């Protein structure tokens, strides 16, 4: 930004709108990180720009979301009716294993931190990049190597152990390519650790002047809490999977009782990572929801500090609840009691967030832009996901519903109804920032509606299946479960169609959507007020000086900046 435009911006009523130095033939600002900073494939593959790395991640992660989604649809098609529909049990067992492994390790764990976190975190704290740009690029390559190992298992002799790799089935029972998919997950863990490490240092050391901890956007708090878990918990998974490989490849007896091991030990190790990992998945989503609800309610967040500290509370307590995956596995009654109690305690910070978000809607100025639709559906579905978690924490009820479709429905409500809704909402929110262009609202809303209806059809039916006693990971099932399974499978097709339309809409928007200005939503965080859309390669020509909180809508009037048409059209006043 030149000296002149900067002083002009200062004259705006304390809500600067980033003005590009110049624009190109389409009206997009130049320089911007998409076009300037190298136009070759090589320049992308060697980029150190956090925004470009975020987009590299996005291409791969969305590809795996598509692959994992296909597996899910095949699983649901097979379950439409009992007996063999399309595949035999061995193929089915591989399909659900791959669905889980791909969705967990290749999609949902990297989704928000590696894509949106990478793109947004430095922008939101007013930094030029993350603390270790080379490490950031390295983590993408490590992700790719891990993905290749996982794919190798897929194309050779796809694993059929379930994504949880329970021993001794995984160590000596299954004759599939368990080692390569396990090594894949092991390698992917390092990618996750490096990203987390990078974010922790970035948040500590790279904040712009005036960006105190309590002026951080809640997205940053959430990513910071997530990063702590990534760094502390992921090594345990790494060690566990390595032990599994040692046992399987070299016959070192650790988990297999035939070799003197203990199979339940594996479950302890596995869930010691994988339960905190659930929060690696949901916490960043919660961060996005805080951003969306404030921006589209045009209102300061209710209970900033409670939301920020509840993220940290979740990060800490999440390490102490792993045993709730094993209430039927023969732990001592004392351990069972402790884990149940702590599980209920970890529910409280999530409840605090939901109450604060709901109250933030009170006396707001709410616009129903596409990201807000996703945020509202998050509130709806995450509440169901959270409340059904209480059933699973309650010991005697858990004994009945453990390892049934109730659990399947519960974690899909949290992971898809929660994380994926937040992720997709976040994509729709930051899309114009990434590409400087807006997607088509009508088809985006249609996609949202299909996903919302399809998702609830698919998974609400599964709660009833579960309480009725339908075990999970079943290729076939007794006749009495058919109508609910059929309903669930029909819903999955609706949801699949919704996601497909969503993908096409976003892609078309990025390529051909109308050009928007730097702040189409009228947000107050730095990436909207101080950076162009798309941002320039180094984010900010001058380091921003932060004076206000991220959601000070009660003090500032942000300028909606979207040349051509305004971004979120205000609703016309109803005729009185």
């Amino acid at each position: 930004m030149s000296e002149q435009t900067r002083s002009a911006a200062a004259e705006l009523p304390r809500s600067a709108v980033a003005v590009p130095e110049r624009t190109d033939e389409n009206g997009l600002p130049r320089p911007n990180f998409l076009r300037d900073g190298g136009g070759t494939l090589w320049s992308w593959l060697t980029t150190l720009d956090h925004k470009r790395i975020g987009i590299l991640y996005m291409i791969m992660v969305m590809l795996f979301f598509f692959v994992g989604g296909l597996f899910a649809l095949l699983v649901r098609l097979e379950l439409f009716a009992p007996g063999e529909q399309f595949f035999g049990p061995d193929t089915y067992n591989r399909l659900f294993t791959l669905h889980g492994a791909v969705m967990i390790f290749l999609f949902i764990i990297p989704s928000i931190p590696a894509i949106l976190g990478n793109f947004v975190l430095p922008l939101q704290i007013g930094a030029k990049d993350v603390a270790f740009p080379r490490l950031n690029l390295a983590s993408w390559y490590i992700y790719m190597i891990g993905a290749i190992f996982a794919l190798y298992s897929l194309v050779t002799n796809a694993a059929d152990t379930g994504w949880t790799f329970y021993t001794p089935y995984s160590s000596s029972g299954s004759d599939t390519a368990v080692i390569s998919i396990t090594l894949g997950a092991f390698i992917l863990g390092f990618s996750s650790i490096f990203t987390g490490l990078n974010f922790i240092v970035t948040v500590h050391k790279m904040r712009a002047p005036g960006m105190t901890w309590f002026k951080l956007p809640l997205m940053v708090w959430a990513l910071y809490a997530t990063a702590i878990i990534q760094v502390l918990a992921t090594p345990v998974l790494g060690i566990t999977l390595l032990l599994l490989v040692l046992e399987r490849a070299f016959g070192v007896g650790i988990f297999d009782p035939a070799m003197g091991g203990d199979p339940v030990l594996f479950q302890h190790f596995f869930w010691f990572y994988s339960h905190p990992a659930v929060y690696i998945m949901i916490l960043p989503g919660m961060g996005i929801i805080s951003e969306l609800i404030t921006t589209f309610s045009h209102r300061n967040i209710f209970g900033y500090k409670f939301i920020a500290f509840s993220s940290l509370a979740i990060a800490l307590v999440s390490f102490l609840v792993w045993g709730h995956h094993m209430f039927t596995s023969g732990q001592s009654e004392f351990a069972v009691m402790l884990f149940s109690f702590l599980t209920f305690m970890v529910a409280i910070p999530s409840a605090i967030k939901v109450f604060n978000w709901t109250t933030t809607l009170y006396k707001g100025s709410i616009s129903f832009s596409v990201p807000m639709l996703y945020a509202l559906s998050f509130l709806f579905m995450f509440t169901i996901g959270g409340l059904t978690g209480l059933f699973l924490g309650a010991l005697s009820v858990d004994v009945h519903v453990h390892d049934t479709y109730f659990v399947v429905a519960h974690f899909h409500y949290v992971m898809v109804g929660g994380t994926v809704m937040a992720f997709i909402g976040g994509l729709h929110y930051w899309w114009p920032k990434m590409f400087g262009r807006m997607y088509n609202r009508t088809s985006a809303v249609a996609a949202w509606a299909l996903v919302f209806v399809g998702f609830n059809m698919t998974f609400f039916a599964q709660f009833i299946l579960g309480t009725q006693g339908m075990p999970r990971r079943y290729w076939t099932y007794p006749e009495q479960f058919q109508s609910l399974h059929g309903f669930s499978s029909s819903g999955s097709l609706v949801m699949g169609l919704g996601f497909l339309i969503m993908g096409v809409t976003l892609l078309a928007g990025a390529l051909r959507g109308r050009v928007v200005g730097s702040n189409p939503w009228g947000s107050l965080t730095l990436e909207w007020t101080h950076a162009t859309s798309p941002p320039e390669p180094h984010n900010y020509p001058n380091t921003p000086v932060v004076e206000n909180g991220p959601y000070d809508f009660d003090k500032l009037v942000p300028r909606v900046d979207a040349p051509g048409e305004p971004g979120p059209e205000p609703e016309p006043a109803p005729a009185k």
Partner: protein
Amino acid sequence: MDTTATFWMPPSASTTAGDVDSLFYFLLWVSVFFFALIVGLSILFITKWRRRKGDTGRLDTGPTKNTLLEVAWIVIPTIIVVIIFVWGFRGYMNLSVIPANAMEVKVTGQQWFWSFQYPEGASTVNELVVPVDTPVKLTLSSQDVIHAFYVPSFRIKRDVLPNRYQFAWFEATHTGEYDLFCAEYCGSKHSQMTGTVRVLSGADYKAWLEGAALAGEGMAPAEYGGRLYESKACVTCHSLDGTPGNGPSFLGVFGHEVTLEDGSTVIADENYIRESILNPKAKLVAGYQAVMPTYQGLLSDGEIDALVAFIKSVGGEGE
């Protein structure tokens, strides 16, 4: 308590099921209340304060903090979850503390069937037969990987481990037949590792025990073998129509040459079949995994005779 299924729950047929269901419905209503509260308020707020023209610059938005409110929505949910925790833990202890006078059944899980040994010496496969109104203690163990013993109508589930005994108990309150599932994924035929719990009146149970001792009496050996083929779960892996499963089909096997894993061949005669039942890994047929468990101790000599006769008869039809 009754034995009809409801919208949410399968029939309730054990002494401990009632308490589980009460807690379940308590949780359900707590959930409905909070869901309605959150979604109801959200809908109210977004309708009432939706953005209207000229609304973009409004600064008089709602409050941003209220400590009393925050404390309220921390304390009230905490009290509720502590109630749920205590209730759930008490129910769990009911499931864990086994009555001293319980009748003991040994349960063995293996890929992919259940077998049961009764104190009187009888044994069954994939069918647990118990008397009504009698506490039954189950001593569970696995021959291979982890399984889980799950009877939805009794609301009991317990993982079945290969390296230690696990215990569960129930007291059935109604006669009838109830589903039994394996609830821990155990490989290829996990979804077919199912069975039935048959709850009989005391007198019927006695009669069944006596009948079990005389099973096969008055039946042609091949006919009895056919029944055992179903009840001892051979059917899970061995078809009768030539389709290969986890094991070779029985169709046309008897008296014919079989190629083994090491390339050698044997004639599938009476002794080969007997050996394959009792020591399945000794002469493995080429193209199949060594997954079949031994039936040593699960079949009497008479039952093996009957199975051999049955396989012979299937072979005959295949000619």
